[in-house]
């Protein structure tokens, strides 16, 4: 009995400290983020003015779009790029073994014809076989490449990267819509500071918003609580998480749905890792690693203003698969680069960010579940006062609600993208409900991913069925 009691006391104490440290770190990240966004935001007017001062010499951008069965969204996505306010944009769409009408839709919209697309970057490999390449009569910068799929997004991007010709490379998903000035804004850090090697912008769910001809004309909060909770998650991850990490140059993830890299840097690390499930994070870590090794000055930045709207899963089944994959990928990536964790040589990324992700993102749900079940056990046996337990649960729920609300506040104060007061209220309510239903399910999905990564399962891509952007919906 005594041994059990000791184990129990140790586990609960560890869990309490774990919570405390987690909230402490996240709290400091929030403060950093608030300052960072605040500082950027005050310059917003000047920034907007600078953008209209057009620069014909701005570095060209190659936008790489992997598309696997994206007939629903691909035309809107490409239109948003063709219409983007940027002097030189090259768009390379990779039709990665689509079984639907992805290429046909592009044919109809952009008048494609078969054209040669020479390889410019032999340093990056490609597995799938190229079937056909096209250029467009209607949109001069658009190129389309059809290839056989090997079931991986990374291979599609690498295939496009091998044929890109511009000094900056941007990756977005086949269902994403960029704001018209998003490329200008996300390219600005590269223009201002030669040591910037990678930059990421904000990704927000497009579900529920009104999309017309490749532009989000009315940003609205989606209808279901599952999707609303995801909006909140994205706000938390981007506005708070990433701007906080970026302020200390410890940014580890640049979303695959909207990231931009110097071409040289990406070629040097060999493009995306074909084996990885978290290929975006893997790429950023590889870039960090390469520069730290050479002790070169470099910066990976996050820009909070430009938005890429992307469709997120609307059913629990698809979401479960996505989250399991994310967790799996994170585990895979961290174990691949485990030699960097805790090493001062790799700067804040090695000492703070990676350990944080390992302890709190990857293993978080396990510790949470373990702590919770031990406490429940303690209450059942009578070692813990039920009131104490309830108090602890209440406070931890309230704190996590407060974190979500902090992210919402940053969005409301600095940007106000969702203009309706009712939408703000809906997001606030989603924040209040989240710990009661979404958090436990999410924890289970993540644990499944963690298990998969520990067992070293080979990664497979999940299919996602998309609704696409219904015009005027």
């Amino acid at each position: 009995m005594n041994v059990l009691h000791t184990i129990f006391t140790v586990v609960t104490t560890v869990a309490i400290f774990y919570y405390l440290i987690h909230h402490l770190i996240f709290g400091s990240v929030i403060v950093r983020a608030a300052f960072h966004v605040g500082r950027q935001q005050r310059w917003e007017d000047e920034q907007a003015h600078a953008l209209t001062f057009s620069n014909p010499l701005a570095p060209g951008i190659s936008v790489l779009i992997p598309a696997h069965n994206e007939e629903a969204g691909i035309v809107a996505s490409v239109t948003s790029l063709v219409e983007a306010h940027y002097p030189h944009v090259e768009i390379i769409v990779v039709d990665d073994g689509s079984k639907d009408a992805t290429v046909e839709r592009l044919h109809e919209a952009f008048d494609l014809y078969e054209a040669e697309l020479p390889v410019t970057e032999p340093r990056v490999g490609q597995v799938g076989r190229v079937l056909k390449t096209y250029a467009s009569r209607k949109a001069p910068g658009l190129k389309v490449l059809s290839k056989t799929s090997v079931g991986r997004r990374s291979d599609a991007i690498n295939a496009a990267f091998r044929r890109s010709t511009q000094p900056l490379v941007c990756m977005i998903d086949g269902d994403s819509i960029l704001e018209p000035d998003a490329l200008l804004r996300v390219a600005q850090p590269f223009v201002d500071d030669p040591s910037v090697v990678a930059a990421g912008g904000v990704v927000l769910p497009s579900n529920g918003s009104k999309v017309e001809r490749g532009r989000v004309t009315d940003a609205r909060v989606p209808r279901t609580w599952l999707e609303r909770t995801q909006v909140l998650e994205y706000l938390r991850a981007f506005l708070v998480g990433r701007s906080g990490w970026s302020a200390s140059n410890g940014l580890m993830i640049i979303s695959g749905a909207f990231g931009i890299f110097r071409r040289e840097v990406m070629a040097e690390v060999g493009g995306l890792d074909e084996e990885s499930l978290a290929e975006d994070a893997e790429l950023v870590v590889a870039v960090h690693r390469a520069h730290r090794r050479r002790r070169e000055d470099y910066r990976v930045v996050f820009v909070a203003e430009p938005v890429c709207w992307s469709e997120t899963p609307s059913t629990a089944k698809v979401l479960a698969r996505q989250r399991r994959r994310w967790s799996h990928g994170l585990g895979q990536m961290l174990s691949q680069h485990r030699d960097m964790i805790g090493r001062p040589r790799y700067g804040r990324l090695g000492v703070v960010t990676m350990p944080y992700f390992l302890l709190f993102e990857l293993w978080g749900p396990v510790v949470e579940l373990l702590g919770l079940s031990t406490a429940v056990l303690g209450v059942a046996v009578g070692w813990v006062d039920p009131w104490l337990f309830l108090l602890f649960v209440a406070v931890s729920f309230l704190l996590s609600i407060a974190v979500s609300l902090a992210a919402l506040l940053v969005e409301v104060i600095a940007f106000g993208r969702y203009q309706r007061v009712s939408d703000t209220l809906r997001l606030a309510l989603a924040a209040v409900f989240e710990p009661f239903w979404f958090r436990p399910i999410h924890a289970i999905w993540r644990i499944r991913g963690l298990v998969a990564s520990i067992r070293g399962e080979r990664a497979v891509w999940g299919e996602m069925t998309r609704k696409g952007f219904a015009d005027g919906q």
Partner: protein
Amino acid sequence: MPEFAATGFEAVAAILLAGSVVLVVAMIVAAVSIRAVGWLVAASRHGRDQWARTFLFGVLADGEEQAPRGPLRQRAVADTAMRLSSKLRGADRAALANWLQSHGYRQRAVEMMRSSFAIRRARGTRLFVAALCDRETGPLLELLEDRDARVRAAAARALGQCGISTAVPFLVRAAQSGTRPLPVSVAAMSIIHTAPRSARGLGLAWDSDNPAIAAMAAEVAGFLHLTDARVRIERLLVAGDSPVVVSAATALQRLGDPRSTDAIARSLEREDVQPWARIALHGIYADMHGVRLEP
């Protein structure tokens, strides 16, 4: 049972719980009310903007309007004038500048440019440009060495917008500065906007230690068709690294002088040029020569 429940525990627990409940409720109220207030503020600003626009259209028509009273309205006029001035040219811009000058906005701009807040200095440069027509640029040149990079960029943009080609050597020098550099691309676009007629002002750039500056000079010269830069650009084809070589070749393509084709052909013989650069060079060579070399 562990001895958590010591004396005073209940009080601490109550405070903790009440505190976090209050925090959450306050944040919800804050988010919703800030959104609502934001909407009101935007509406009133929109109204003032509308008023300032009509006011300045009146100024453009007859130039006779009195300066508005009240700090909010004055500010709205200054903001709108900055925006309008960058969208206008010719007689309209001159009329706007004259009115701003004769109603004290020029002085206001200079004061803003000496402010201790970086953002105010940057905004000052824009108001200064809007009120500028006698081409006195001293205060802008000073701000090229400002301690904040964004202010330096704003000053450079302002010089570009004034179209003063005598500022080109200053812009090149600011880009080369070791301690307080002006971003090269900002220098480039400002130089393009000043539209110099010869490459003389770029003098310092060709022999710069920073390859980005030499590449910038080539791009600018190509874009502006500064034919007197051709020989300097051709030299970059043999000396520079891959990005510089491509910039130089692109510039020569724009200049379109047939004498440059030999220099481009020689750069194709270089072993150290990277494959992507080689493809670009082939394309340019073919374009200038009407010959297709297979890579």
